[in-house]
């Protein structure tokens, strides 16, 4: 393994050939203000970020720094006060199935079975296909996350980890250009979380989709990402630093634990969060 981290060794990207793939998700001078009863609250200021196609980007920061707001802006669930967001060269004006979201609390509809929850997404995106094809897609997505045995179960009949798997299956079934994950494993216990992280890594390797994940877990960020976006504290939060993670794939949790580069990256993120941008305890 690479014993020494050298920032300069990041491979130079050919910038002429494919501008769009390089700036697949592009955030330009974005600012976000919320109007509250106490007046305007500036959540984000001067956000600039470019995400290359196929990249896995994590956004990390203390709670309340507006990292979920960034994700919601990319999803199109929020509109920025200033600036613009683009996805695949098009301006993001509204939510759309090409940017699928995995929600923190899974947000499955409790009156539908796992299969029906996934099918709802398939139906919308691939409505022009035959019913057989659509059904096959829904089953394939559930199989991908290892839930073939629980397709007919309702969300309240399965565990938290399984619910989150269905949430991921629902997002993947739409074959999105960008997968947006909002603290996807935040509500799970450590063991389940580790299992799902490995699974997600495998799935992302397979599909090659672009992904943006909001997290507050340093290990999760280093393990899964190609790039870690570290945010400063709000109000008026911005991007503090961007850390490139050039650990080779496939990444193995156990091997990485003793990897010098991994531990260096990990401590970089920790230093950012707890030294330079430590949050005062409320």
């Amino acid at each position: 393994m690479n014993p020494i981290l050298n920032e300069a060794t990041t491979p130079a990207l050919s910038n002429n050939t494919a501008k769009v793939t390089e700036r697949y998700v592009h955030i330009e001078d974005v600012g976000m203000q919320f109007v509250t009863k106490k007046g305007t609250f500036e959540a984000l200021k001067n956000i600039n970020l470019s995400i290359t196609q196929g990249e896995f980007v994590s956004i990390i920061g203390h709670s309340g720094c507006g990292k979920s707001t960034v994700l919601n802006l990319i999803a199109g669930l929020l509109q920025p006060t200033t600036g613009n967001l683009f996805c695949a060269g098009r301006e993001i004006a509204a939510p759309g199935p090409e940017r699928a979201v995995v929600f923190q609390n899974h947000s499955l509809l409790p009156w539908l079975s796992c299969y029906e929850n996934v099918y709802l997404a398939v139906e919308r995106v691939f409505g022009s296909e035959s019913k057989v094809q659509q059904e096959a897609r829904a089953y394939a997505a559930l199989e991908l996350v290892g839930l073939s045995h629980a397709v007919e179960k309702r969300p309240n009949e399965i565990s938290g980890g399984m619910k989150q798997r269905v949430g991921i299956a629902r997002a993947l079934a739409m074959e999105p250009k960008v997968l947006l994950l909002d603290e996807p494993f935040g509500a799970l216990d450590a063991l389940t979380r580790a299992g799902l992280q490995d699974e997600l890594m495998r799935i992302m390797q397979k599909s090659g989709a672009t992904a943006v994940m909001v997290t507050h877990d340093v290990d999760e960020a280093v393990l899964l990402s190609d790039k870690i976006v570290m945010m400063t504290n709000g109000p008026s939060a911005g991007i503090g630093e961007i850390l490139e993670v050039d650990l080779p794939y496939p990444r193995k949790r156990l091997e990485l634990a003793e990897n010098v580069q991994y531990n260096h990256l990990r401590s970089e993120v920790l230093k950012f969060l707890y030294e330079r941008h430590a949050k005062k305890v409320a």
Partner: protein
Amino acid sequence: MSAISINKEHLKLILEDAKTSSESIVKETVLAANEDNTHMQMIVEKAAEKTQKSAKSQPSAMQIKITDFFKAVIPPVFGILMFLGIWTLLSHQQPILPGPISTWHSAVELFSHPFHQNSLDDQGIGWNILSSLQRVAFGFGLAALVGIPLGFMIGRYEFMSSMTAPVISILRPVSPLAWLPLGLLVMGAAGPAAIWVIFISSIWPMVINTAVGVSKVPQDYMNVAKVLNLSEWKIITKISFPYVLPYMMTGVRLSIGIAWLVIVAAEMLNGGAGIGFWLWDEYNASNYEHIIIAIFVVGIIGLLLELGLSMLAKRFAYE
């Protein structure tokens, strides 16, 4: 070593007593006995405890069942007896008030031919109940047909909510019977007027409960709808409607309750047929036992409607 042999004897005794369920446990302890003496003793004690428990548990479970049964049955029986006692006492004080026994005899006679029909004014109680139920079904059905979609729109669109709020706030507290003259005036007939009164007084709980349910659909679900880009129809059928169903059923239950409350009063004023009319008619005919029977009939039917809808609501609950 002697300790082991004693314990082994002890074990044998237990083995003989043990039921099939605890046999495997004891067998395990026999194996353990050869390995560790002190540990074994503990296990033996536990196994003994278990066999004792399983021997005791059956009669005690029976006992629990019996006490549970009495706990459930005695208080209501006591309540009913007390009610009958007070009723009897009152009827002794006021001889014009029929007592439980004379009412019972009268009821037996009345219900022996519930569907006789001599003239329009002299019908069996069954016919009267049916015509009341029919009226309620019409009025309530119309109210549901209008009220539930209206509630959906009020809950879904803020404009609708602000628009209808003042009108609903003013009309909702009006006493049901205040609407009767208006109904008679416009419809010109007693039958439709009664249905109108039921309609207008039972519509509000359905409108309001449905609207509250729709406005409470969690933002998470609406975000799912937005991300999946669902059509308005899909949002209603797959998200709003299933979420609102329990709220709606509460509204329906309250509405049926009100409709049944109102029907008696409306029929008393209107005449024709129906349990309310019958009650008034029997009062005029000085059949005082029948008044009390009518009250019980109204109460029991109201209870049955409520129970039926509760059961229906349970079927629609998703959690």
